[in-house]
Structure formats: structure tokens, C-alpha cells
């Protein structure tokens, strides 16, 4: 450019004077009294008492060296209440977030830099953005089938080996572990310490789930007590959701208060409304198993043992009595048999004796009928020959033989004079 082109009536300004003039111009157009809304995507964010945030046009890439950057800042007096509200609503200003900032331009002469002092942030807009991104994440997870993946993991009927993702010392941790410890069951709790809120929490939680998943546990419990939406924002994080979905171990969640439902809850195998309820549910699972597999069998064993012993006692007692009675009856039977036999023998002896006597009398009577004395007395005689033999026929004698005739009162000799066969 030629020097003559630079001719002007304006006086030459010192640098300071130039900035004063520039500041005055900016103040009049975009200054404290003429604040403006500016929409930008957070490119960098840094907090040190005050908030420092670099905004760029949404969708621009960092490789574009010429993309406009607005160095905004929010002084602590305004940032602190804003920060609390954002935290309560679960909004984190981080790279990628599109935000509407209300403020004014300022010029920092010592560094020759134009900045933007933020006095307000469109929280409602941010919330809408957060909600939209949350729904998009849910839709994505659903489309990939990840909402059901962990729900289909088989659950141990007695989940005693519990992996716990929590922050020790927090109420959520105490509420959950308190339920398990007071149950009296032998829970084995493997703790993976993590932050449960803040920037670092999602990565730590996801990492903890992955590590516990390698340990062959029965269940992994993700626990966080109540808090603001911001406190619970980590459980809407995609990394956490994907870690849960990918886990081979069933993941149970007990996050926040009643009514809070995080994406972690949606992806989890089982969701309890609070850490305390989650502890109760785990204990109930074990108690139900123990009732069915330990207590009821124990009751049956007790009952059956009593019945068996009672039955055995009755059996032995009954057998003892039976034996006593059986032997006694048997002995009585034998005694009766002996008595009867003795009586029968006695009776039979008498009969035999009487019969014998009768027989003797009859014999005696029979014999008496054959008594020769009685025959001789009746007139019969007995003749004997010379040889002393009884003469029974003519052949026993000869004519002229002498025979002896015996009569009832003596004998006399006789001679055979004539023999005549047949009766004369």
C-alpha cells in the first residue's frame, strides 16, 4: 500500500490510546450495557476459581486453523451459582456441548486479546440438549440390543460372591453393604473403588465393571446414593452403559433415590431403586435359596428323624413285648399239653386196667366151663388105658385090655370085653 493511501486527519495514537479507543467502541457496540447471546460449541473448558471456556462454531473441526474462537470467561461470583445449578441439573460443560452464553465483549489490552464475559448460560437449552443426547443414547443402545444383553445373563441362584462398584465412605456404600453384612449370610464382597460423580467417574466405573467381570463373581453391584441429577450424571454415560451391557456377569444397580432412573439402570440385569433396596434384593435372593435348599430340608430332616426314632422305638418295644408274651404263651401251651397228656394217660390206664380185669374174669369164667371136676361131678368119667392115655376112641384099646375109669370121687379098674363101633 502506498504511503499516500495512508494519509488521514486522525492523530497518531499511542498503543494505550488505541486500546482505549477500541475499548470504547466495543463497549458501545457489545459492552456491558449491550450484552448479547452467543451460541457456540465448547472447544476447551478450564476452571480455576473462574471458568475459562473457548467457544467455536458448532460443527467446526479443530484442524481448521482459521475457525473463529471466542475466549469466554465467567468470573467466580457468577460462575459459582451457575455451576451449582448446572451440577444440580446434571449438566457438565465439556467439549462438544453446545451452549448459549449471555454476556459482553471485553478487551484485555496487556495481551491484546478480545474476550467475552459470560453473565448467564442458557441452562434450559443445555438441559434440552442433555435430554436429547440421553434419548439418542438410549435409542442407540436399544437398536444394538444392549438394553437386554445383561438382562439375559444367567443369575446364580445364590449370589454370595458380590462385586461392588462404589465409593467407600459414602451413604450408598454403607447402606448397601450394611444390608449384606447384617443378613448373617457369608457374602464375599470384592470392592472396586471408584468415584461416583464428576468427570473421572464414568471411566473409572466402566473400568471397574470390566475388571470385576474377570473375577467369576455371581453379581456385580453398581451403587450410588441419592444426589442431584448432576451427581448421578455418570450413570447416564455411554461408557458405563456399554461396560454393563458387555459384562458376562449380571450387573445390578442401586442408584440414587426412588424415581431416579439412569441409563445404567436401563441396561442393567436388575435395577433397585436405592442401594438399600439393592442390598435387600440380594439378601432376599440368598434367603429364598437358603429357605428352599437349607431351611426346609433341615426342617424335614428334623421331622423325619423324630418320626424314624419314634417308629424304631415303638418297633423295638412292641417286639420286646411280643417276645415276652410269645414265650409265655408257648410255655403255657406246653404246660397245658403236658397236663392234658398226663390226664389222658391216667384215664386211659384206668380203662386198660378195667378192661384187663374184665378180660381176666371172662377168661376165668371160660376156663371154669372147661373144668373136668365139674364134668366128673355131672356124671362124666375119664378112661385111661394101660399107658395112662385118655381113651378117646376104640383104637385106643383092645378087647381084654384093662382100663382105669376116673369118676368124681375116685377110680376103678375095668376090662374091655367087647367093642362095638357105633352107639348101641
Amino acid at each position: 500500500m502506498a504511503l499516500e493511501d495512508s494519509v488521514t486527519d486522525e492523530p497518531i495514537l499511542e498503543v494505550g490510546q488505541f486500546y482505549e479507543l477500541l475499548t470504547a467502541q466495543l463497549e458501545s457496540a457489545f459492552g456491558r450495557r449491550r450484552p448479547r447471546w452467543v451460541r457456540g460449541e465448547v472447544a476447551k473448558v478450564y476452571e480455576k476459581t473462574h471458568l475459562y471456556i473457548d467457544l467455536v462454531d458448532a460443527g467446526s473441526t479443530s484442524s481448521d486453523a482459521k475457525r473463529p474462537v471466542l475466549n469466554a470467561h465467567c468470573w467466580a461470583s457468577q460462575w459459582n451459582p451457575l455451576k451449582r445449578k448446572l451440577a444440580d441439573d446434571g449438566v457438565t460443560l465439556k467439549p462438544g456441548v453446545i451452549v448459549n452464553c449471555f454476556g459482553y465483549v471485553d478487551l484485555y489490552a496487556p495481551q491484546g486479546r478480545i474476550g467475552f464475559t459470560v453473565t448467564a448460560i442458557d441452562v434450559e437449552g443445555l438441559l434440552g440438549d442433555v435430554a436429547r443426547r440421553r434419548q439418542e443414547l438410549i435409542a442407540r443402545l436399544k437398536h444394538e440390543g444392549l438394553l437386554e444383553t445383561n438382562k439375559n445373563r444367567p443369575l446364580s441362584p445364590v449370589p454370595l460372591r458380590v462385586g461392588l462398584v462404589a465409593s467407600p465412605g459414602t451413604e450408598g456404600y454403607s447402606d448397601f453393604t450394611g444390608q449384606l453384612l447384617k443378613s448373617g449370610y457369608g457374602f464375599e464382597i470384592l470392592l472396586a473403588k471408584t468415584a461416583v460423580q464428576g468427570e473421572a467417574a464414568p471411566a473409572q466405573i466402566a473400568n471397574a465393571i470390566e475388571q470385576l467381570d474377570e473375577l467369576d463373581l455371581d453379581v456385580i453391584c453398581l451403587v450410588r446414593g441419592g444426589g442431584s441429577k448432576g451427581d448421578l450424571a455418570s450413570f447416564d454415560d455411554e461408557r458405563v452403559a456399554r461396560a454393563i451391557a458387555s459384562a458376562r456377569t449380571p450387573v445390578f444397580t442401586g442408584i440414587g433415590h426412588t424415581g431416579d432412573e439412569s441409563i445404567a439402570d436401563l441396561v442393567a440385569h436388575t435395577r433397585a431403586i436405592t442401594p438399600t433396596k439393592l442390598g435387600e434384593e440380594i439378601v432376599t435372593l440368598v434367603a429364598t435359596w437358603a429357605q428352599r435348599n437349607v431351611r426346609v430340608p433341615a426342617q424335614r430332616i428334623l421331622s423325619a428323624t423324630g418320626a424314624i426314632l419314634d417308629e424304631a422305638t415303638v418297633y423295638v418295644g412292641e417286639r420286646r413285648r411280643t417276645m415276652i408274651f410269645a414265650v409265655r404263651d408257648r410255655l403255657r401251651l406246653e404246660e397245658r399239653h403236658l397236663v392234658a397228656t398226663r390226664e389222658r394217660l391216667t384215664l386211659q390206664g384206668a380203662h386198660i386196667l378195667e378192661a384187663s380185669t374184665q378180660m381176666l374174669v371172662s377168661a376165668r369164667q371160660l376156663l371154669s366151663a372147661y373144668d373136668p371136676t365139674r364134668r366128673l361131678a355131672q356124671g362124666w368119667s375119664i378112661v385111661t388105658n394101660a399107658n395112662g392115655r385118655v381113651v378117646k376112641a376104640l383104637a385106643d384099646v383092645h378087647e381084654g385090655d384093662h382100663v382105669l375109669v376116673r369118676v368124681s370121687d375116685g377110680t376103678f379098674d375095668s376090662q374091655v370085653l367087647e367093642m362095638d363101633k357105633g352107639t348101641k
Partner: protein
Amino acid sequence: MTIGDWNEAATELNEIVASFDEGEVSVDDLFVRLERATQIIESLEARLDATKAKVEELAPRIARVAERE
């Protein structure tokens, strides 16, 4: 003569009792069978007493499990 396990002993005892019931026992056998039956009954009672003692020891432990809330 040894005595078998509970079921074997009970079977033998039942057979002895049945032989008495059926009048099969002669007076000569009476003492022998009675003596055997007495041995079996005493053995069963001893086993029963021993089992009861063990049960009394174990039952409270099982009861604690059974009655646990």
C-alpha cells in the same frame, strides 16, 4: 453269632416272632430262639439309644438352621 444291620436284625427278629406266632418252636428251641431274640432286641435298643444321643446333640444345630430368619 453276629447281628446284622438294623434291617437285617429286624428281619431276623420278625422271623423269630413269626415262628412263635405260628407255633413252630419246639420247647428245645424255645430258649435258643428267646436268647437270640433278646440279643437282637438289646442290640437294637443300644443302637437306638446311641442314635438318639447323636440326634439330641445334632438336632439343636439343625434346628438353628431350620429356624433361622
